[in-house]
């Protein structure tokens, strides 16, 4: 489904500029440093995931990009436009979907979109036409004329997404867009975002659900305690999930085929969790299992690569028990202000 037939024409900025550019951005609320040092680019035509624990400054960063909050220091550009210096120009090309579900309770979904369109400068007829298109896009057409107060959380989430798309924005800032959506709506959202990116839009979205983010993002920006950090590139000692016919009972056979001590293997929900030092070792291990005539049903990373990268981040608590003597993670800042 395309939404390119929107009546708004926007985006006149320098095409060489990335969709979003942040350099050394900082913002504090009193003593709380919500965002300490954020530097990243989000490319046009790609979906960039914003990954970080609670209170890492994701929402504050999105608020600054959406031209609602001033950074204390640093530089932000959206399609080359400074949202602080030219908020009007930036707002014309930015679609922002907040994490809080703010819908006018007594207005219908259709009216909500029409009013929003009017506020983006659409004529009455254009706003009505645009609302009708978007209600179809987000699959809310059958609830178009119900007041927003009767919408479920997921339905409000869809309405929020449609509202962010009213003016056919070139840059989309989505704060937890998938929360509250049912599986079907998530798949639909994924396709929608891929389609929007394919049309050349820049999409930055934050989510806690890493597995879900993994299916839609091209790039990821990791945010820890208000700072962008490089994801650890080393792939050392990662766990792989191995499912064999016969279940965990074949653990000894698997260990033997891999030449490993059976004590290194763990069992999780009937699957074996096998540690390999790196990807090459994992590939060799799979070959060894097949050659040993062990009926392998599945062989996959135990956690997604994003999740793995996330837990490899400095300062992020590891999901397992930290080895003794491991550096204690820096405490994440309290949620304060807009963080």
């Amino acid at each position, binding site marked *: 489904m395309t939404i390119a037939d929107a009546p708004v024409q926007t985006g006149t900025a320098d095409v060489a500029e990335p969709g979003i550019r942040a350099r050394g951005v900082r913002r504090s609320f009193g003593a709380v440093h919500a965002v300490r040092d954020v530097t990243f680019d989000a490319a046009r035509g790609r979906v960039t995931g914003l990954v970080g624990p609670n209170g890492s400054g994701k929402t504050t960063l999105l608020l600054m990009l959406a031209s609602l909050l001033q950074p204390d220091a640093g530089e932000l550009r959206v399609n080359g436009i400074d949202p602080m210096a030219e908020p*009007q120009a930036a*707002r014309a090309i930015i679609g922002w979907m907040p994490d809080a*579900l*703010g819908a006018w309770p007594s207005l219908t979904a259709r009216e909500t979109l029409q009013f929003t369109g009017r506020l983006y400068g659409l004529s009455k007829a254009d706003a009505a036409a645009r609302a009708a298109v978007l209600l179809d896009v987000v699959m809310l057409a059958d609830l178009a004329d119900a007041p927003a107060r009767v919408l479920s959380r997921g339905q409000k989430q869809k309405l929020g997404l449609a509202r962010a798309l009213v003016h056919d924005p070139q840059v989309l800032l989505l704060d937890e867009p998938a929360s509250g959506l049912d599986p079907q709506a998530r798949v639909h959202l994924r396709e929608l975002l891929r389609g929007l990116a394919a049309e050349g839009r820049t999409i930055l979205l934050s989510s806690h659900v890493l597995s879900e983010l993994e299916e839609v993002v091209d790039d990821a920006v990791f945010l820890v305690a208000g700072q962008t950090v490089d994801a650890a590139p080393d792939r050392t000692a990662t766990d792989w999930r191995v499912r064999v016919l016969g279940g965990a009972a074949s653990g000894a056979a698997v260990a033997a085929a891999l030449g490993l001590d059976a004590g290194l293997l763990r069992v999780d929900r009937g699957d074996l969790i096998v540690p390999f030092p790196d990807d090459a070792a994992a590939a060799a291990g799979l070959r060894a299992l097949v050659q040993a005539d062990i009926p392998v049903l599945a062989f996959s990373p135990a956690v997604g690569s994003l999740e793995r990268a996330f837990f490899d981040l400095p300062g992020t608590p590891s999901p397992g028990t930290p080895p003794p003597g491991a550096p204690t993670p820096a405490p994440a800042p309290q949620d304060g202000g807009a963080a």
Partner: protein
Amino acid sequence: MSLSRIGALIRLDLTQRVRSVAWYVLLGVFAFLLLIVTVLSFFAFGSTADRGASVYSIVVFFVLLLVVLVSPTLSGNAINGDRDHATLAPVQVTLATTGEIVLAKFLAAWTTGLAFLVVAVPFMAVSLVGGGASGLTMLVSLIVLIVETGVVAAIGVGLSGTLGRSLFSVATTYLVVAAFVFGTLIAFGLGGLAVQSETTYSYRSYVYTDDGDIPDPPVCGEWETYEGTTPRFDHVWWALAANPFVVLADATPVTLNREGYPVDMFGWISVGVRSAQLAPRLETVWDECDRSMQQDDSLTSREILERTAPSWFVGLGIHIVVAGGLLVWGWARTRTPARTLPPGTRIA
């Protein structure tokens, strides 16, 4: 400033208001109270010649009272209430500027307040049946009523943009309104009593015989002098100028009846307030022997009005400055991209 965006914002606000049941209940209660007041006024003034004028002025005062009581709840959470419901930021990210948002909120709150005036119109019209109300009085009082409704709306919207908590801003709006309605009265009363002047009262009378008769030829007694104090309301009369009820009364032209008394409540309050401008007599002499020395201090309504200055435009000016100032403050605190946020709030 875009008129179409302001129009859309006003409609957005009003659409939500007219869909709330509470709003109609409030209008119904308002109409019911007005009905009672109108009927009672007709009974109270039914026998007077200009009962229409009296009833009209009472109805208008009552409308102003209700507007002052109701308007803060209609406007005092306009902006921070939206922030609480997370519906402010989605508007702020559109092309609507902060100025447009604040102005639209103000105009919507004002319009809502004016709906109460519309409900009151039939009751004002009924009072015309009684006769006596002049067209000019009606026109001026209506204009003042409309402006005062806007003043309360602006105070509420301004404070709702300035203060983070909607409950707190509604309460503060009530306090500001109360400062005008009651604070001016308290300032006037206490101020006048606090500044007292010395008065002397001198008198002499005939020396009476033991029978209580005046001897012939009359013999004048000695002068006797008493000292006392008197409150100086003439120094603080301006405190009343900022009272909305005084503004309403003072702005409407006073009509005097054949006996020289005001025909309506506007006139009575106007004359009463204006008389406070007159300095009290500090030296009073009462001489029974010389009738020509005896003074009659009481002035007629017409004399009071002629010797004093109207003050309603000063009061109205103060209201408009305070209301406008609060709107500007609210605008400054709501501006995006925000540098500082009202304490305890999230922007979204």
